[in-house]
């Protein structure tokens, strides 16, 4: 691995640095607790950071520790409200936070993690390190939150490193293709916003990117004990950070089918290696589950804090629970991605328009801050054009190289099928969640981000559809467009919170 990293060109490291800076910029721009579910994620990290133990799962509501609550209450606006900033309130809050910080009891609340407490603790334990180190230097809750956000940005940059390694496997002789794919990921605004917050989705991004890289590497170089363990470890990191990362197991299993098929001539060694990969992936979680009953009875989340004024949910308490039949899941899945057919019950009646458009396409164009603001639907339609152009370009590039790619057909099917399987698993979780909560929706674009390496691959492949002489110009234009996208995202954020 270290030799592999040493061989990475300087440009690749520059892209990793850009990803970190992008996350860091979002971490100072986004108001405290305005990352997705950040109140509960912070509660988890803070509890682990303070006590070294995992929090209880007794409450569906986040009850932040006193110092975090002082920040939340000190800000003269709500999660869902219109900001009304006041320097005096800021000074008051600072003074209160300083005072509260003197007593460790003010930093501990066992219900701070609320509905996030059912998740495994790996991310929280990792983030407990910057949390504690900042405390040693006298940092208060706000300093610690910044430190954890920055550490999360570093994790996000690690994900981009794995994306670059994946692209290197996919385009070994086309550096421009993997550079442009890596930059497209590093500068994706929702990705940057996510990694600049406190959220256990971030290690799952790392996990997914590493898994895709290792799958591609194995297709080129064969399955070995080290690689098998690496494949399993990549998935294990995700599973130990978030329950709903189980979609990665589907990606791994699907890929292993192709890897074993590829090496069927020596199946006697390939099959045990596949078993090893699966074991390394799931055994740590199973062991942890024995100790801690992971993921049981995940309570439905609320908007975050116990107090008046919480936003209404779409759930109708009087509504009958949806059926759990496979037929209903297939109907749910169909309706999420495609127009509803006449004989199907409407499972998305609360959506103003089409679920995939609202949930994935608009959100990929830009939805931030508890996914409450972003670009207009009209502007988001530009993302449809971009994605269509990328898919068309990648299709053309693949078609032109179809003979040369014959040997890599299995890899392409493994990656595309892995993405489809992962997306279906997110929908499966969404369907279960909808049943458990009687109608609340689950899917968000960030849940697809563990597969973001494939977005980079799409951009890289589309570049190869262009003639050689246009590629450098195209790289510049793509990077320019991505940068403008970032600037526009910062602009709507400034407008949303601070203007």
């Amino acid at each position, binding site marked *: 691995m270290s030799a592999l990293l040493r061989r990475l060109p300087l440009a690749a490291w520059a892209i990793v640095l850009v990803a970190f800076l992008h996350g860091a910029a979002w971490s100072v721009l986004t108001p405290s607790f305005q990352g997705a579910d950040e109140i509960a994620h912070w509660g988890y990290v803070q509890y682990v950071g303070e006590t070294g133990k995992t929090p209880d799962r007794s409450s569906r509501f986040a009850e932040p520790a006193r110092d975090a609550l002082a920040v939340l209450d000190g800000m003269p606006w709500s999660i869902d409200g219109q900001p009304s900033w006041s320097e005096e309130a800021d000074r008051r809050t600072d003074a209160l936070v300083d005072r509260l910080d003197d007593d460790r009891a003010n930093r501990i609340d066992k219900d701070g993690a609320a509905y996030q407490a059912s998740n495994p603790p790996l991310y929280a334990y990792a983030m407990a390190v910057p949390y504690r180190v900042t405390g040693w230097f006298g940092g208060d809750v706000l300093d610690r939150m910044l430190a954890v956000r920055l550490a999360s940005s570093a994790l996000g940059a690690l994900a981009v490193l794995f994306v670059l390694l994946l692209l290197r496997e996919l385009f070994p002789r086309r550096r421009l293709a993997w550079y442009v794919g890596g930059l497209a990921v590093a500068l994706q605004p929702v990705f940057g916003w996510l990694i600049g917050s406190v959220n256990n989705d971030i290690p799952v991004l790392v996990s997914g990117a590493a898994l895709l890289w290792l799958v591609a590497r194995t297709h080129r170089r064969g399955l070995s004990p080290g690689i098998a363990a690496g494949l399993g470890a990549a998935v294990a990191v995700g599973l130990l950070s978030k329950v709903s990362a189980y979609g990665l197991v589907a990606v791994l299993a699907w890929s292993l089918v192709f890897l074993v098929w590829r090496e069927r001539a020596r199946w006697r060694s390939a099959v045990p290696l596949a078993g090893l990969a699966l074991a390394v992936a799931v055994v740590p979680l199973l062991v942890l589950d024995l100790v801690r009953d992971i993921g049981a009875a995940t309570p*439905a989340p609320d908007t975050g804090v116990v107090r008046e004024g919480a936003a209404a949910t779409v759930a109708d308490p009087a509504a009958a629970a949806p059926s759990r039949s496979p037929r209903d899941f297939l109907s749910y899945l169909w309706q999420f991605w495609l*127009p509803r057919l006449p004989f199907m019950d409407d499972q998305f009646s609360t959506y103003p328009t089409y679920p995939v458009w609202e949930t994935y396409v608009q959100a990929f164009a830009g939805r931030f801050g508890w996914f409450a603001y972003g670009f207009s639907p009209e502007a988001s339609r530009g993302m449809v054009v971009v994605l269509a152009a990328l898919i068309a370009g990648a299709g053309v590039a693949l078609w032109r190289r179809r003979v040369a790619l014959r040997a890599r057909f299995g890899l392409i099917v493994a990656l595309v099928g892995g993405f489809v399987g992962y997306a279906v698993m997110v929908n499966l979780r969404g369907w279960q969640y909808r049943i458990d909560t009687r109608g609340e929706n689950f899917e968000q674009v960030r849940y697809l981000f563990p597969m973001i390496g494939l977005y980079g691959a799409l951009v890289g492949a589309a570049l190869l559809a262009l003639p050689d002489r246009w590629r450098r110009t195209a790289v510049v234009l793509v990077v320019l467009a991505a940068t403008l996208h970032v600037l526009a995202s910062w602009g709507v954020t400034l407008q949303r919170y601070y203007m």
Partner: protein
Amino acid sequence: MTPPPDDPRAPRRPSRPGTAAGWAALALAVAAIVVLLAIPFVGAATGRVEGLLSSNTQVRVSSSATVLEPGDRACVRGVYVPDGARVVRVYPGYVAERSPTLRFTVRGDGGRVVAGRATRFATGEPLLVDLGPLPTSASATVCVHNRGPSGVSLAEARGHFGAAEARPPIRVGILSGDHPRAVALVDDALERAGLFKSGIVTPALIVLLGLAVLVGVVGALVLVLRDEEGPSS
């Protein structure tokens, strides 16, 4: 030693995936998916209301509005008025053919009151009312009084905990001048972005990190373009 099956040196076999028929099938499947995915977007103009997206807990379809009938008054407390502010901004929704007269008052912390009125305004556009220099306040009270003759709906600040009365507070903005452009507000915005965060988060740091991203992008781009195409290792 036999090359692995996916190795280009391996002998071709017509039954394996990767043949022309396999590629054609894959292309057909992808084309079908693209067409099916495109259907919603082609038919998107259904007249249904587009709105903000969901989180795990809510779908916000649109901003709520409160209706001020002739004679009604709505107030918002705790509004921060920076030094040099002149303009009050509200968001009228539905306005009757003959728009009502709205009287605005801003009462500062020291009790000083500034007032003004708006008589003609349009549906769906932010209404900016220049009241002259406003009293600099940490917690001013802004009121809107409908003098008639028709009602008007104004966007609410949903979830605002500082409601001054039973009526939900309307969404009020305080701006520093006439029709200010966003660029003119960046200074203030960056100051606010530094509030309720770590002490090291200052406007300078935010700008510095933003510039660092841009410099990083340019640097990465230069390195990328200088790097010759070829084997990566």
